[in-house]
């Protein structure tokens, strides 16, 4: 226990004195509020917390957190965060990025921070558009997205963040929605508790440049049919009546939707979510509306040793093997010779 026992913290302890400057109605407000509510509950300390961001609307995030923060350059937050963790692995490091910052200019670094399993939480705000530069299409935009740079519609195929993360060997992958606060907070906590790179895609509405990008998933009247919230150990069930489920196709490879109570299907026929199963996670990651519901919650969690702990363990091993460092001995290693003063 520290010399002076820390008092219980509240949301206010994580709010900086800076005025929040996102557009009115931006989904970022909800994402920020949920995190400021979550951190005190899960035992985070402001002095021990670091937010690292790149460039874009989402990357303003660190300025609004009363923690340590580094608003860096476009796409590079994962590399800077890795340096922070190598220097001090005891810090809680959060990377804030977006679909442009994380998957376009910074795709390379995102790939590597995931495969290395650096112990950080990565929140990727996906609004399928460039907001800060005023409305160009992004690498997650669907084909046909119109914007100032694509007046006739974009023609290139999008990348999907969750399959990307799994492909990069991420050990923790989850998806949430900006305004669906309680599950978002639960995902934050799971991400925080996971030791390793925790990747969270948050569907975020940009009311100015891409309003309603996810309304076919998030609109209240259809949400329960288009969202499947996966829970480890429970059947993969969704729908207004909670009577639809996923099961393995009988006639080939993949998943299919079944209705419980029809054609003799019971709950027992529905696949049970196993968040440690990569094959299942990969299938769930690829499900897209309108054919399938989109899967939310913790899709994959299968912890592995973290990069920085392994590196520092090697440093320790070197210290044990070679003993106390002796710089003079280092310079004198190998062949030396003495030139004597002339008599």
């Amino acid at each position: 226990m520290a010399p002076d026992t820390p008092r219980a913290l509240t949301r206010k302890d994580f709010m900086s004195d800076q005025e929040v400057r996102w557009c009115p109605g931006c989904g970022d407000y909800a994402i920020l509020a949920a995190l400021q509510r979550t951190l005190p509950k899960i035992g985070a300390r402001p002095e021990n917390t670091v937010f690292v961001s790149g460039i874009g609307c989402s990357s303003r995030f660190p300025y609004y957190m009363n923690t340590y923060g580094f608003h860096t350059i476009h796409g590079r937050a994962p590399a800077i965060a890795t340096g922070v963790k190598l220097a001090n692995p005891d810090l809680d490091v959060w990377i804030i990025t977006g679909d442009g910052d994380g998957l376009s200019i910074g795709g390379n670094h995102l790939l590597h921070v995931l495969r290395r399993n650096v112990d950080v939480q990565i929140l990727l705000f996906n609004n399928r558009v460039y907001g800060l530069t005023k409305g160009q299409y992004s690498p997650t935009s669907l084909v046909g997205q119109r914007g100032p740079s694509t007046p006739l519609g974009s023609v290139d195929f999008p990348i999907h963040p969750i399959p990307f993360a799994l492909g990069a060997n991420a050990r923790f992958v989850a998806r949430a929605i900006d305004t669906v606060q309680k599950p978002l907070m639960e995902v934050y906590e799971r991400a925080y508790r996971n030791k390793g790179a925790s990747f969270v895609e948050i569907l975020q509405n940009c009311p100015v440049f891409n309003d309603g990008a996810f309304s076919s998933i998030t609109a209240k009247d259809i949400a329960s049919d288009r969202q499947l919230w996966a829970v480890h150990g429970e059947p993969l069930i969704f729908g207004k009546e909670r009577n639809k489920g996923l099961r393995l196709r009988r006639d080939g490879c993949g998943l299919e939707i079944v209705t419980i109570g029809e054609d003799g299907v019971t709950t027992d026929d529905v696949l049970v979510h196993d968040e440690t199963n990569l094959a299942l996670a990969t299938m769930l990651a690829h499900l897209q509306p309108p054919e399938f519901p989109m899967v939310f919650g913790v899709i994959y969690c299968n912890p592995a040793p973290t990069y920085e702990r392994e590196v520092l363990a090697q440093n320790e091993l070197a210290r044990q093997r070679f003993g106390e460092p002796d710089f003079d001995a280092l310079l004198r290693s190998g062949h030396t010779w003495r030139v004597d003063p002339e008599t």
Partner: protein
Amino acid sequence: MDLPSRERKQLDEVVIRLAGDSGDGMQKAGEQFTLTTALAGNDLATFPDFPAEIRAPAGTTFGVSGFQIHFADHDVLTPGDRPDVLVAMNPAALKVNLGDLEPGALVIVNTGAFTPANLRKAGYASNPLEDGTLDPYRVIEIDISKQTLAAVEPFELGSRDALRCKNFWALGLLYWMFDRDPEPTLAWLDEKFASKPVIRDANKAALKAGHAYGETVELPSGVEPYRVPRAKLAPGLYRNVTGNEATAWGLVAGARLAGLEMVLGSYPITPASNVLHYLARLRHFGVTTFQTEDEIAAICAAIGASFAGKLGVTTTSGPGVALKTEAIGLAIAAELPVVIVDIQRAGPSTGMPTKTEQSDLLQAMYGRNGDAPVPVVAAATPGDCFTMAIEATRLALRAMVPTFLLTDGYIANGAAPWKIPDFDSLPRFPVHFHEEREGFHPFLRDPETLARVWAKPGTPGLEHRIGGLEKDYDSGNISYDPDNHHRMTKVRAEKVARLADVIPEQEVSSGEDHGELAVVGWGGTYGAIEAAVRKCRERGMSVSHIHIRYLHPFPKNLGELLSRFDRILVPELNNGQLVKILRSEFLVPAEGLNKIAGQPFKVSELESAITSRLQKGA
């Protein structure tokens, strides 16, 4: 037995070049000759010159790998202009190097490689051993391939592996010829091939056979064994060091003098990679090495580490600096210390990766968006890399600013004897982390250095945000205020300028502090310029050598010093970079002397340039 030294012909200096295919082991043989030469007490300098291809097609001229060593009984400043001895392991090696020899030079040829196929690959229409090409030289023709095969026959190697021992056969011959003790090399083989005893013993046998050949075979007239007496070096303990070794050690020393641990972010690139390799073996010295996914991640990891309170370092070459440029700007704006080591090579673009050049000075000084000044220092010799790596660390920490150390492929790979310093004798510059909550903001400045405070994450009550956006001078919050940006830009420049208060004044390496001609250099051209100026001064010329190691800021007295010379000549291995800065800073009539060949200056080139300037001025 070795000949008694009275029967050896005494020489005051020798330049040897070993040349063969890039797979012939010329670099290894050269390194061993260097080691034994240093142990024999000569001063020396080396120049490894190899192709970028790891194993270029055998027998071709572009696959020729060379290693030159200059050793003497006096102060050696360069690897030498022209070899006195050339060892050519095949026709291509002969063809590439013959033009550098003076008539009368000694050529040792491996006749076994002079096959019709190899002659054709080297582009020889007729055999140079038979058509008079070698008439101006003293020539020793030996079938080194056959001799090696015979020497290693008991070990029953395949002919491919057996022939790979021929570099050690040639080395053995040179050891005999120049009175070298083979023991350190035999010991090195024991260690190197401990797990491959057959290879170890075969190489040892080849080395001994080459040595024995020299002792027993009657050599052509004019060829005899030599000895070069010990050099008079300053008293002390010495070792050989390459620039890259010294850089790695200097970085470790700098961090320790500051009381910090180091995080190195680095991406492999020629000729910088082995600094990463050396540091990766020094993890017990508080060094964490991180081979990143690219050059950008390498400096970003260093910046992240500095933000978190360690010394962030990145090592690279020119193309890597180009990629790191935006991140260097971030470190300037966020005012974080990072040491950036640029081991320069020939550019632009990929250029000639294994060839030396000094063409990144302007990139280091100015190659960023916005007004973005950084300190820049440059090492003059392999051993000086140690000192200047410490200096780069000291300046970066003092001003909280990314700082460049420039070296180049020539001193990075070249070796020279180095007087080993005592760590305790080096001045310390301990870092102070800010912990005081009262009145804290992240851009509080030290009134003397103008550096901002360094408050590391984990410190209660000092939570703060930094980044690439302009910050308010008085609060550290984001600011778009016009006057504030002007003020912050000025203070970022001023804190770098004030480093001039804590760097040594400019000295004159050779000659008076005034006169007809100053030859002003920087970086790895030190040895060649110094040798040329000394020779010209011996001939009575009024010429001085000024070598600049602190390029930004310049030493305070530099402008005044330069004003005391009638003419200023600036030799550089680029198309004129320092000369532009000197002209713009000091309004002096500095004149460039440029060589952009991927090769260092020859002393003779500089001598004739100096001579012609003084004749014209007369």
